[in-house]
């Protein structure tokens, strides 16, 4: 919303940590495996 002060405010939604999305997170970490590297992460 524009508030007459030149700013634009966007409301954020959140999703809490729960068992199902934690499982997905773990699967993601597992899948990522050895291919992930800090070098690539930081584009060095």
């Amino acid at each position: 919303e524009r508030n007459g002060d030149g700013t634009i405010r966007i409301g954020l939604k959140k999703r809490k940590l729960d068992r199902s999305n934690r499982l997905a997170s773990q699967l993601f970490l597992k899948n990522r495996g050895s291919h992930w590297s800090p070098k690539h992460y930081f584009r060095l």
Partner: protein
Amino acid sequence: NDENADMVPLKNYLDAQYYGDITIGTPPQKFTVIFDTGSSNLWIPSTKCYLSVACYFHSKYKASQSSSYRKNGKPASIRYGTGAISGYFSNDDVKVGDIVVKEQEFIEATSEPGITFLLAKFDGILGLGFKEISVGNSTPVWYNMVEKGLVKEPIFSFWLNRNPKDPEGGEIVFGGVDPKHFKGEHTFVPVTHKGYWQFDMGDLQIAGKPTGYCAKGCSAIADSGTSLLTGPSTVITMINHAIGAQGIVSRECKAVVDQYGKTMLNSLLAQEDPKKVCSQIGVCAYDGTQSVSMGIQSVVDDGTSGLLNQAMCSACEMAAVWMESELTQNQTQERILAYAAELCDHIPTQNQQSAVDCGRVSSMPIVTFSIGGRSFDLTPQDYIFKIGEGVESQCTSGFTAMDIAPPRGPLWILGDIFMGPYHTVFDYGKGRVGFAKAA
């Protein structure tokens, strides 16, 4: 070698996500996106994404239904770990709040492999990082908002609501700050390296005790797209020990402490720089900036021949910092060696969360960051994730380890765990980041 392929970190979105809505096209097509200060592109799924299951569970952009669509077609690929999001650039009007950014370049993703995006609540990502890390050198949405004069001030700010009972997720303000959501003044620090919102940070304290690792400074980035707080293994091990998080039991670490502990202590007592101790005792070679493995044969305690490898060198460097930290506390030599040996049981697995005992949360220490000469405390309630209630509850630490070598590292990634308690201002005009207590 593909100039359009680039690396953007895929983060723990699934642990605790904050996201908001934007629209693209005329008439507007709605998308839910992560506002991510750790990347710089806008991407959303394309209606031409046929082979990725994730696309079938999310809103997709249909170019043919938008009168403001402009064809671009330049291929784009953002790699993340084992997979990649790929597609092509398109141009269309992007509406953020009631601001319309005309002919914004964005990526229509035609491929989203893997399970991560399948289960994600968001459709895409809106990057708020610098253009320097933008895939395909695409101009970020925020740059266009500033350059086209759509915001009053070239700043944006985040407030993330960490109250678990409050359904409101938070707020991002483009063009200013919301005074309702912070207390006192912001502490500003300059952006030291454009790309991420990167700045210099001082030492970290655990329960008021300096760790020493960042005494001469570390780099940090403020990253709204990551849920956790990531730092160098050396310090995360100390935090893990303090909060009772288990880690890998490192044989190399124990061997170093057993064999070289006393010698290391003597070197440190002789005012030797902890970074040079391991090269001095022959475990690492010192190249002036960092230690490197010697790769020579040695005999370890159990009599077996082993290679003095990188693991031992790394363990030695960590142990030197731990010992130095204890020395500054005037601990006895026996206590220091015992402490170092204990820490060898708490070395974290890179980029993975550690489980902790929910019953101990109230007695866990405050972890304090030093930014711009001011202390920023994180309480256990800030950095521990709790899932479930009562006897079935499970707790995990929000601290994870990742080691980035100099000169870019050591680096801390301050994600939502930090940006929750601390309202964060991203001042693009003055090239600085500011933190104030969130309200």
